[in-house]
């Protein structure tokens, strides 16, 4: 294992210290339990957004705390859900009296830990609602799985719901918009390499030099199919077809196209992927109204990418364009 770390067991807390040292103008970092809040939290009368998840997906979620996005984020151990005491303390710290929305990615552990935290927070008199993201088309959504995973849409949802809360929407309104984003978004990911959890010390799965894994999640868990490496053109066609056919996105639709790097893929490749996606969607008569290209929801040092499409309307576009000022996403502010 080659990593820029000191001790595997100190990875998360030392990252948090780095965030605190770098971005004290935007966020405040708390320890034991670990959580990050906006520097100006709590904001009286504003709905607060709290998310969280395993570490290893940076900049998500801690990098999205700030004006126009999240009020708090709770980092768990690498690829491990945070615990209810973290979400409870974060919820109390950012509650401005207008209620708190928990943004939860659909993984068994995250769901259970956030449910326990919401029960505890309600017990202390805080109004808590939750929205669950489950946009990964690689997973069959059936009674026989834990359901679709929450992946790329989570980033878009945190931005858009964050803007809705910032403009003064009620808890019910913010939740409705968040659910709309999840309902209109679909994603799929692929890996060129595996990744290594620091405390495990070796890659979570083996992938040959000439192989790729299609339909991976964001935790180094293997995907649904392994195949020989193909060209960017063919890879995008496989993934974009699965995404477009799933919702389905139709000719005349306007979408936000999000090309995400998994952590170990350079921007030059992401732009090649974007070009392929652009041409693919053009061929289907689907117009890209907004885009996002870069590594925003990662899987440590994994090479690969994920594609996310979100069907847009005027309101979602306005909320997407609204100012945001966080360590990981910043425009208009």
């Amino acid at each position: 294992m080659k990593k820029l770390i000191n001790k595997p067991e100190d990875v998360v807390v030392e990252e948090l210290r780095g965030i605190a040292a770098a971005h004290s103008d935007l966020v405040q970092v708390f320890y034991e339990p670990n959580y990050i809040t906006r520097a100006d939290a709590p904001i009286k009368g504003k709905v607060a957004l709290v998310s969280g998840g395993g570490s290893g997906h940076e900049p998500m979620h801690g990098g999205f705390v700030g004006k126009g996005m999240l009020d708090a984020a709770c980092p768990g151990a690498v690829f491990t859900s945070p615990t209810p005491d973290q979400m409870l303390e974060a919820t109390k710290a950012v509650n401005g009296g207008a209620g708190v929305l928990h943004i939860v990615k659909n993984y068994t552990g995250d769901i259970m830990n956030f449910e326990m935290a919401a029960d505890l927070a309600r017990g202390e008199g805080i109004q808590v609602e939750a929205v669950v993201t489950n946009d990964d088309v690689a997973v069959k959504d059936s009674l026989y799985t834990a359901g679709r995973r929450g992946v790329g849409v989570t980033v878009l949802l945190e931005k858009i719901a964050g803007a809705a809360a910032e403009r003064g929407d009620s808890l019910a309104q913010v939740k409705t918009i968040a659910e709309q984003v999840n309902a209109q978004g679909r994603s799929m990911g692929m890996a060129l390499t595996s990744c290594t959890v620091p405390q495990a010390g070796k890659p979570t799965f083996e992938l040959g030099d000439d192989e790729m894994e299609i339909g991976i999640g964001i935790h180094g868990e293997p995907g649904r199919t392994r195949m020989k490496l193909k060209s960017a053109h063919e890879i995008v066609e496989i993934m974009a077809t699965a995404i477009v056919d799933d919702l389905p996105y139709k000719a005349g639709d306007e979408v936000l196209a999000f090309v995400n790097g998994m952590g170990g893929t350079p921007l030059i490749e992401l732009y090649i992927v974007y070009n392929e996606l652009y041409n693919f969607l053009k061929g289907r008569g689907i117009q890209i109204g907004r885009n996002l290209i870069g590594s925003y929801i990662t899987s440590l040092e994994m090479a690969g990418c994920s594609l996310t499409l979100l069907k847009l309307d005027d309101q979602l576009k306005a909320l997407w364009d609204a100012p945001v000022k966080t360590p990981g996403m910043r425009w208009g502010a």
Partner: protein
Amino acid sequence: MTISRDAILDWLKTFAATINENAAYLTQLDSDIGDGDHGANMNRGMQAVLTTLPGIADKDIGSIFKTVGMKLVSTVGGASGPLYGTMFMQMGNATAGKMELTLDDWVAAMQAGYDGVVMRGKAQPGDKTMIDALAPGLNALKVERDNGASIPSALNASASAAQQGMTATIPLVARKGRASYLGERSAGHQDPGATSSCYLLETAAETWNMTS
């Protein structure tokens, strides 16, 4: 014959030691079909439990179990934290105020813990989860109790039923948790949660055979 509070504390220490010894193995099982953190997470949780035991050693068994559950919830994370945490908290409710346990008390505690896991995780036997070790372990315990068995022989039967249940997860296709994302590819691997749950019942049999 009863299970004393000291025996309960010894069991928790033995379980922590077993998790520590097998952390790499549990993580390997989890890497095959999950996200490769079960051993590290359970080990972190049980090591945290060990540090709290001296401070609660004079409490009743129910309080000890509840404290263990709270500690696991706040230190393990993932799905295992809420599941094992809820299990111990429910075992604590079932043994509140008790300073020693009869076999009936132990069956009641295990039943409460099992019900807690089912409530929190919504899994059924055959879904390839910890339930697949706990359910046969609990059933064997009840059968032995009804047949008037001694505590050691009931615990041994419970441990071997849990072992069989654990092994029987190998051919199963996972229907809960992260392994379910693999579909058919999850078959052929032993479930890590069933493995750690098997250790729970095995260490009870080991510890209480010697101290009871």
